């Protein structure tokens, strides 16, 4: 079954087409690396998949249902450029807040379990504004995984992470992939992305230049895809 399906997606900013008739499908349990240069349209695509922006034309479905529906949104975990946690709340309060918003049955227990998993249990009552950058990033990872999402949308997930946060995130992504969750991530870190991915999509100036399985050639030479399908 397709976990995510994007059909003929167009997105205009004024007259400028940021995405031009993009179509792809990601089967359940697969991991898609969304590649492309800066400004290619990766973030725009991910925002549409997450229901944070509406496509000008086309449709996105999640497990056969409209991606913008509340039921679909409850199955998505998103990690974007910002950490999306509140500086003036404690780590525990932040996770409890999102657990409640996702309607989880035991918000406090779930929040504490994730704080432990990300190594933040000792600072659970500390305000986020007092946290180091690495601690904030680990809290953001916990926030994205908190509700056990079926689909993970990750926008440049490894950018600006410290070593410990990278280790935490990599561990969680491998665990998510092995447990059959669907992952779509945009990244510039080709080697890390291609090692994790089962499929690859390359966007060039808003157009889908390549979409298919990750091959041995890509893994052996991460620049192979750009050389063969990228811009001249």
């Amino acid at each position: 079954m397709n976990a995510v399906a994007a059909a003929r997606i167009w997105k205009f900013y004024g007259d400028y087409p940021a995405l031009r008739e993009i179509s792809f499908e990601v089967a359940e349990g697969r991991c898609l690396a969304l590649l492309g240069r800066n400004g290619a349209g990766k973030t725009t695509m991910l925002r549409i998949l997450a229901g944070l922006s509406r496509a000008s034309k086309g449709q996105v479905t999640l497990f056969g249902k409209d991606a913008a529906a509340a039921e679909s949104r409850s199955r998505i975990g998103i990690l974007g450029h910002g950490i999306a946690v509140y500086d003036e709340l404690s780590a525990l309060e932040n996770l409890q807040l999102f657990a409640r918003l996702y309607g989880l049955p035991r918000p406090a227990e779930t929040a504490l379990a994730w704080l432990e998993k990300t190594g933040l249990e000792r600072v659970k009552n500390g305000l986020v504004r007092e946290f180091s950058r690495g601690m904030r990033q680990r809290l953001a990872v916990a926030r994205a995984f908190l509700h056990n999402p079926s689909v993970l949308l990750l926008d440049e997930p490894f950018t600006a992470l410290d070593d410990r946060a990278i280790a935490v995130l990599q561990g969680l992504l491998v665990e998510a992939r092995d447990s059959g969750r669907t992952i779509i991530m945009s990244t510039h870190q080709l080697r890390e992305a291609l090692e994790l991915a089962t499929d690859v999509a390359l966007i060039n100036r808003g157009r889908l230049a390549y979409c298919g399985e990750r091959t041995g050639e890509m893994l052996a030479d991460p620049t192979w895809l750009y050389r063969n399908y990228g811009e001249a």
Partner: protein
Amino acid sequence: MRYARQILTVAFKDLRSELRTKEAVNASVSFSLVILILFSFAFDPSAESTREFSGGLLWIVFAFAGALILNRSFARELQNDCLDALLASPVPASALFLGKSVANLLLLLAVELVGLPVFLVFYNARIVGSFWTLFGVMALATWGLTVVGTMFSALTVNLRLRELMLPMLVYPLMIPCLMAAIQLTTVLLGEPSLDAGQMVWLRFLVGFDVIFTALAVALVDTVLVG
């Protein structure tokens, strides 16, 4: 039931954040007190003249002080891209909006309840009618201001000049609500109860609240997601 819980979760989060930083509340309370005290030196607060301008002065101060709180409502979500996380959650945009409106209502009422006694002392005025009737009018009018202000706070959240744009956009829309609130407050500060003619203003205020709440709830998803 789940919808109500979502509204309360958002409202509680906003109140907790604001009470930790006190950014908007401190500015709003200080502003309203300074203006009320400065005007008390500008006017001769004899009993009769006070009664005539009391409602107008109070509501102009509350409307300006309220803009400081309303401006922060959605701007607070820009820090760390928290708005994206809220919109990506299964919480409907209308629940998010109503949660923020409830938090803003409580904060604004708190500012008004600090400003009202200061006004009564400095202008030598007293509440001739029932305090609870006056409080009811304040709550209804404040809900009207809050709904319009919170909606435009969402609309202007990504503008660089939002602190300027919000008051410019909302005050013209608030005029009917302010007119009703001014009329009713002026009466309740000088007379024991509202007569039949003044009840029209009360119905007008309720109508304003119902219409603008319904409009905001219907449109907020379009405003936030685009």
